[in-house]
Structure formats: C-alpha cells, structure tokens
C-alpha cells in the first residue's frame, strides 16, 4: 500500500487557497483575468472613441472659431466638399494599392516560410521579417527618403545601368510621378509597402502553415496540377490570413500621417488632415469627422470580406 492518503492536504497559505478557489470558481478567475483589459479598453479606448464620435457631430462657428456643442451633420457634410473628398479618395486608393502590393510581395515569402523553411531557415525568416520592426519607424522612413532621393541609390543604380531615361519616364507619369521618387506617390507607395510588409507576411504565413499537407496531396491525387491546387485549395484556405494582413496594411495606411509628409508630393492624406485640423486649424469637429472615415471604411471592408466568404475557412 502507498503511504499517501487518497486526498492530499491543501498546500495552505495564500497561493494554495487561491489555487483551490480558482479551481472551484473558474468564472472568478476569468473575471480577474479580464478586468484590467476591460477597464483599459472600455474606459480609456472605447471612451475616447465615443468622445471623438460625439465631437464629430458638433461644428465650428465660422466667425468666432469656437466649437458649437449642438448636434449637427454639417461637419460630415463638409467631408463631401471637393478638396476633402479628394483627400479621402486619395487615401483610400493608396491604402488599397498598398494592400494589394503587400499581398503580392508577402505571399511568396510567407508561402516559402510556411511550407519549405525548416529549422535554422525558419529562424532566419522570423528574424528577417521582425528585424525592421525593432528599429525606429522614423529612422526607416528617413532612410527611404535618402534611398529614393534624386542623388540616392535608386537613381545611382539606374544611372550605372544607363537606364536613367526609364526612371525619368516613370517620374513623368502624371499624378503618381514627380521631381524624384522621394517627392512622388510612387515613393509614398514604396515606403508604405516596406513599412507594413511584416504585418502582411506574418498572418499569411500562419494561415498557410495551417493548411494540412495532406490536403495538398489529396488535391494532387484528384488530378490537380500545382497551379490548380493553389487556386482551389491553398488560396481559399489562406484567405483569412490575407484578410487579416490586409486589415493591418489597409487601416495602418488609412491612418498614417508621417510617411506621406516625409516621402510624397505634398498632397494630403487623411491622417495629415486630422493632424492639422486638430492642431493648427483648431477644428476638432472636422478632425473627428475625418477620423470616423477610416473606421467606417474598415467596417465596410470587413463586412464585404465576410459577405464574400473570406472567413468561411475559419
């Protein structure tokens, strides 16, 4: 016979007592787990969001420049003025292009990491993807400004290859071109693409990694050559990852106000307008209304993605 009793005595003390209490009252444990986060999210985050929403229904008095605290939709109507609508369309188009570009660049990298990289190469992959996130955002953006500048390395490479006219031709394209890459939308696009890329790679990699290898075997077994397997099996199953990544790239681009200021042709994006309206212009209601735009766009985007069945594989 074992000398131990069938029921062991409690460990005693405060931790022993807590262990037993939490075991008997799992809901209490969950409550304690969530309370700090709920307080933070509920009061600090959601609270400010609602205050913001409230602000957007006020308007500014044109003569006094003071905020009139009365419910009105006038501020929202202002968003539809041509110069403001211009900003919104520009930002949304840029966000969409950056998202598409990220998907195209990220997918092969993520696919390689998920399906082929093993051991050391997997570590190298994570390091390569994460490393840029460890350094300052501003440093990276200014580095890109130099890379894309007229005397920068990109121009130098074009020169060495004797294809400077090609660069000039690209820069001569109206709207997206400019004096140099660092003063053009192409430059803005490239920097956005670079800065947000990790946020696209990691979710796609996680999604592709979750696709069981035997589904790929099964598709091949049923007569699907690699391209068809990709289209009918891997892509649909990776779609939630792509959507997750695109939520990051899309919303981050929608809200960013630093990159277009440093690398760009001076035309404004939503973030910059919010920045100037709430600062120098002192038009908090308009700034708030502009801030609501990305929230609404993201809501529509998620709703559309859901409708299109992007989350069916989850």
């Amino acid at each position: 016979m074992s000398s131990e009793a069938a029921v062991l005595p409690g460990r005693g003390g405060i931790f022993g007592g807590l262990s037993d209490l939490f075991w008997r009252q799992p809901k209490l444990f969950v409550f304690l787990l969530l309370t700090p986060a709920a307080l933070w999210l509920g009061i600090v985050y959601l609270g400010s969001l609602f205050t913001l929403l409230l602000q957007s229904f006020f308007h500014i008095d044109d003569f006094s420049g003071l905020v009139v605290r009365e419910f009105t939709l006038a501020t929202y109507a202002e968003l539809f003025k041509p110069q403001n609508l211009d900003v919104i369309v520009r930002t949304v188009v840029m966000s969409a292009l950056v998202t598409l570009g990220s998907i195209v660049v990220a997918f092969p990298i993520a696919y390689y990491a998920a399906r082929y990289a093993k051991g050391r190469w997997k570590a190298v992959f994570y390091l390569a993807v994460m490393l840029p996130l460890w350094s300052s955002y501003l440093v990276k953006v200014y580095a890109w400004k130099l890379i894309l500048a007229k005397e920068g390395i990109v121009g130098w490479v074009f020169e060495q290859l004797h294809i400077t006219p090609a660069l000039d031709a690209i820069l001569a394209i109206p709207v997206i071109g400019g004096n140099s890459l660092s003063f053009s939308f192409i430059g803005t696009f490239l920097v956005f693409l670079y800065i947000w890329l990790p946020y696209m790679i990691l979710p796609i990699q996680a999604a592709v990694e979750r696709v069981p290898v035997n589904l790929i075997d099964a598709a091949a077994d049923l007569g699907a050559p690699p391209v068809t397997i990709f289209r009918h099996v891997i892509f649909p199953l990776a779609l939630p990852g792509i959507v997750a990544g695109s939520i990051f790239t899309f919303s981050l681009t929608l809200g960013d106000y630093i990159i277009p200021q440093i690398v760009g042709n001076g035309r404004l994006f939503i973030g910059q307008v919010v920045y100037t309206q709430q600062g120098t212009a002192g038009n908090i209601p308009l700034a708030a209304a502009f801030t609501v735009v990305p929230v609404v766009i993201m809501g529509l985007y998620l709703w559309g993605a859901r409708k299109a069945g992007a989350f069916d594989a989850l």
Partner: protein
Amino acid sequence: MNSAVSLQKVSRHFGMVKAMDEVDLEIVPGEFFAMLGPSGSGKTTCLRLIAGFEQPTSGHIEIFGETAEGVPPYRRNVNTVFQDYALFPHLNVLDNVAFSLMLKKVPRVIRRKKAEEALDMVRLGGYGNRKPGQLSGGQRQRVALARAIVNQPKVLLLDEPLGALDLKLRESMQDELKALQKALGITFVFVTHDQGEALSMADRVAVFSDGKVQQIGTPEDIYKRPQSRFVADFVGSSNVLSPEFVYSIVGERRWASLRPEAIHVMASGNNVSRMTGTIISRSYLGPTIRLLIDLNGTQLHASVPSTEIMPGEGQKVTLGFAKDAIHLMEPA
C-alpha cells in the same frame, strides 16, 4: 502485362533510413490487396509510391503496364482515401466529391449527378450541402471514399481508412468496403496495421516489416503457413517455438509456429507428464479464453472456447496438439 500494379526492386530511402528496400510486388487487376505491417514497416511509403506522392530511390513501378516513375500524382488514374480523410474544409460535401470532375471540366449538371450517385453509393445521399466539419468521423470517411471513387480510378488506394473509427463502425465499414469493391470491380490496395482487418477483407495480403515484404499470400496462407517468425508473431499472434523445443517434438532443429487454438488444454489432476504446464494468466475474451501457460520454461498462448471449464491461474494443466499443427519455418 497483366498486373494492376507492379513493383520491381523498388527502394525508397530517406537519408540513412530505408523505408522500403528492394520490394517486389505484383497486384492483380480487380483484387482486394492488403499491405499489413506495424508502423514504420514501409507499407504507407509503398502506398505513397503508387499514388505518386513519393518517388522511388531506385527500382521500377508500373501501373497497368505503364511506367509510373516521374509521373506526378495528378497524372495518375489512381485515387487515395487518406487516413485522416483530407477533406477540403472550405468546400461542402458535394463539391468535395465533385472536385476531380470539376478539374476535368465536366459540365456542372453532370458533375452534380455523378457526385450525388457516389454519395448514394456510400449511403450519404442528401448530405451534399453540409460542410465536412459538420459530419461525424464515419461520415467523413464515407465522403472521402465517395470522392475517391467518383472518378472510377484504375486503382483505389486506402491508407488505414478505418483506423479512426470505433469498433462497431469499423466492422460495418469493412463489410461495406468489400461490397463496394465487388460492385465497382476496381483494384483496391489497402494499408492497415490490423491483422484481423487484413485477413477478413483482402484477397491477398503482403506482410511488411523493416521496409521489406516478408510474405505475400492469401489470408489463409499467411495465417496458417507463416514463413518467418515475424509473420507468425504479427499475424494472429502465433506461438513461435524455439528450435530446441521443435527438435524435442519433431526431431528437426527449426523455428516453428503453433496457433493458440490448435492447443488442447486439460486439467491435469495428478497425472504429470512432459506436457504438463502451469497457467500463468487467463483472460476472458467472450467467445474464447486466452491462457498463457508455462511449459517447462517455454511460454505458450492457448485459446480455448469459453464454453469449456478451465482451471484458474497457478493450476496445472496438460497440453496436447497434433504434430502437424506445428508449422515449420526457417532453420535455426
């Protein structure tokens, strides 16, 4: 050329590991062929070579007379039922079954009709609109089967398809699979580690061990006339008799096998003879009682009908068996 599948000196090595080593195999068209062996014996590798997921390190594979090395799986008219079914989670049952037809660009209406027929065949008619996640294990297994047969492949490969099912379901699926194979007339190649399953379902069985085929034959051959200690032990857990023991009975120094049910056991009372042993343990298995008996240092399993009254553990018993029940195998 009249083999459905023919393997000639086929090896598949993974680095130093010889998953398959110079295997020769001929599978006859229309037969139900089982590949039996413990895990790591090479049977699944063999299946994957026939399916085309693996390429042989050396040797030659033919499927209905056509060379298969270097032919990718999607160009082989061979379909597989996977161990864990490998159903596409984002497609409903009907689209899963119709997947191969869709790839062949079969018109939608015909595709639907054929897929529904295949589902009817596995008794899952009307389940077409469900997602695989909404089905039970047994139902998923049937969908996997329907998906593999909808295309009428030349050879159907089944990789432990019943492994994840409970006993009752497994038994009924065994009968269904056999009936299905008869109805379709397709060559079935079935991988299993369950000897009972292999013996009851297959026309012929290949026993794998350590990357080699130990023996190929009908279930009766394999069960009654094992050629090696491994086969005797693995298929139906025969008693493997040592050369010394065999010598003392038949006068030949060879390994031999003795089926547990070939041993008669009697309570010995006071008559002690050369064949008197002691019961070490007894297990009640329903129709039979399984005894482990120590006979002068040799441990023997005996299986007796549970209708007989048997002494308990530690009691003396006298054993008897016909001399020709001793099946001689390799020499010592």
